């Protein structure tokens, strides 16, 4: 299982802020950063650039529909531009330089970034992802009202506690308690105003608030030995066909998954100059693996199998962690109510290969 790498700093540094002062704090941060907060402005809850006034999200926000991976690995990004002149092609790389704060990221989504960091750091460093990651400060906000579809606690994640963020906020009624988690968080606190010292009473209510949130995550999944079970069931076509029967391969579970990182690379061109883009792709589509003569995942059940096994078998073998955070989006937003926890619970017992 995933092991914590960062140490949570001691409680001596606890601060707090009144909810009504959050706007002021975000404004202050805007001087040095582009600040993203939960927003429903586009009609779909996602992390959007803060408009400078609206802090209503403190009341409506449970989690975003579009995960904050979109702010690190955007659904479409230019990698470089190219132009042709007499001397030939000139390439101009696009470097993501914006310093950003993601305010209100949930512990599940923060862990998701820690998980996919491993891919983007592996062997060949991915400059686009890693630069954006480096330029981002994560301000976590503990859940108070998880969804029925949430099962983060089964993946070793606490809905209101996180070592994957830089600052962690806990709702204690009219105020938010602020914990420093990393040096990056500490630095951001140094640039903050309107904070007061938290008392031991505040810390007690934060503890209470966290405990309540934890208890509210009622959906459970037993992941013991899941990688081996999946490996043993890999060739069980009947099982996978049954599991995939109702899937309409729309891909929404992968696009909205905070740990799905697959992408496509494409060019756009007009009048001699153009750009190379990368955009999210999905193993739900048969085109994803289609080759001129063959397709290793032509059938729907093969693609559903790939999705499940990638998260619960292959990724753990490669990086020692399950690539799922139990955020529940693939359950909440599936148009045909496909449920990954049901699938995982119904993996048949086969003798090990």
């Amino acid at each position, binding site marked *: 299982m995933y092991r914590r790498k960062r140490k949570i700093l001691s409680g001596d540094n606890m601060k707090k802020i009144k909810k009504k002062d959050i706007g002021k704090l975000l404004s202050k941060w805007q001087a040095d950063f582009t600040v993203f907060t939960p927003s429903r402005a586009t009609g779909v809850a996602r992390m959007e650039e803060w408009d400078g006034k609206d802090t209503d999200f403190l009341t409506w926000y449970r989690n975003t529909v579009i995960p904050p991976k979109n702010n690190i690995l955007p659904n479409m990004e230019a*990698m*470089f531009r*190219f132009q*042709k002149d007499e001397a*030939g*092609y000139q*390439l101009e*790389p696009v470097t993501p330089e914006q310093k950003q704060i993601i305010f209100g990221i949930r512990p599940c989504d923060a862990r998701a970034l820690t998980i996919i960091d491993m*891919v*983007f750091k*592996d*062997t*060949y*460093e*991915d*400059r*686009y992802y890693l630069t954006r990651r480096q330029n981002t400060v994560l301000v976590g906000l503990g859940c108070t009202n998880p969804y029925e579809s949430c099962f983060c606690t089964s993946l070793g994640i606490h809905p209101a506690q996180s070592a994957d963020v830089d600052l962690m906020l806990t709702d204690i009624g009219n105020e938010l308690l602020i914990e420093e988690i990393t040096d990056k968080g500490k630095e951001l606190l140094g640039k903050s105003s309107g904070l007061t010292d938290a008392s031991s009473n505040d810390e007690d209510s934060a503890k209470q608030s966290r405990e309540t949130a934890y208890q509210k995550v009622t959906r459970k999944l037993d992941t013991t030995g899941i990688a081996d079970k999946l490996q043993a069931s*890999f*060739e069980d076509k009947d099982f996978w066909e049954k599991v995939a029967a109702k899937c309409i391969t729309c891909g929404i579970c992968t696009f909205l998954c905070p740990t799905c*990182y*697959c*992408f*496509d*690379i*494409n*060019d756009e*061109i007009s009048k001699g100059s*153009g750009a*190379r883009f*990368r955009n999210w*792709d999905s*193993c739900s589509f048969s085109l*994803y*693996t*289609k*080759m*001129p*003569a*063959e397709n*290793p*995942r032509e059938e729907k059940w*093969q693609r559903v199998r*790939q999705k499940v*096994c*990638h998260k619960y*078998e*292959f*990724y753990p*073998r*490669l990086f020692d962690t399950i690539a799922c955070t139990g955020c529940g989006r693939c359950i909440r937003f599936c148009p045909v109510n496909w449920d990954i926890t049901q699938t995982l619970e119904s993996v048949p017992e086969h003798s090990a*290969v």
Partner: protein
Amino acid sequence: MAITDISNRKKFPANGNVYLPNIAVIEKIIEETADTRTFHFNFKDEKLREQFTFESGQFGEYSVFGVGEATFCISSSPTRRDHLECCVKRVGRVTNAMHRLGVGAEIGVRGPYGNSFPLDYLKGKNLVFVAGGIGLAPLRSLIWNVLDNRNDYGNIDIIYGARTPGDLCFTYDLDAWEKDSSVKMTTTIDREHEGWSGRVGFVPQVLEQAAPSAKNAAAIVCGPPVMIRFTFPVLEKLGFTPEQMITTLEKRMKCGIGKCGRCNIGDLYVCRDGPVFSFAQIKDFISSEY
């Protein structure tokens, strides 16, 4: 043969943005078949031209700017450094665009990526090369590599087949190997064809008839998946162990460096852990996802 660790491989450009292609210029185009061409190219940057190294079996990501990228192996041998070569069959958007390019046109090249044929393992052994169609492209890099260091290896058998005489690639190489007395060259086509007086039969059958010994040998196989599927059982019959059978796999790829996700077979990524595998490494997947 263990999976090669590529983490310490040289990267071009060093410490740079891996997605940024290097500009290369097409110097020569050879019409191999009606739909397949070999491109000879060199990097525009002279320094890179000198520094660039690769090993037989590695591949690159090739750009036609404005159209996109596609994956091809480097089909020339690292022992011949005058230029680089790739062999491209016209099958999709990028490969069609590539075929529209002429000598002097610029393309983008990223790489080299992936592992390579295990030369240390192959040295001192009798080598059996089995290829079909454009599958000769990656093996050709290794064959020339081996022939340029002929004393390091034992007997060399090459069995190469295509559907029709017109589908045979690298006929100039086939001629050269035919003439080379240190090579046993067998060329075959799938069915009788007017004007063809050579051998007829599918590659696996011809291999079975040729019956090369498995003793102190290694078989290196590349071709269409259906050929590979039928070739492994024949090799097994001839006494080759899964360890002695080596192949290079083809999958749809985008990044070439283990990130974009699509080329996996289980927890192996063909781009990062391959494309060269021993049959021992992939035999569990042959039936299902390969």
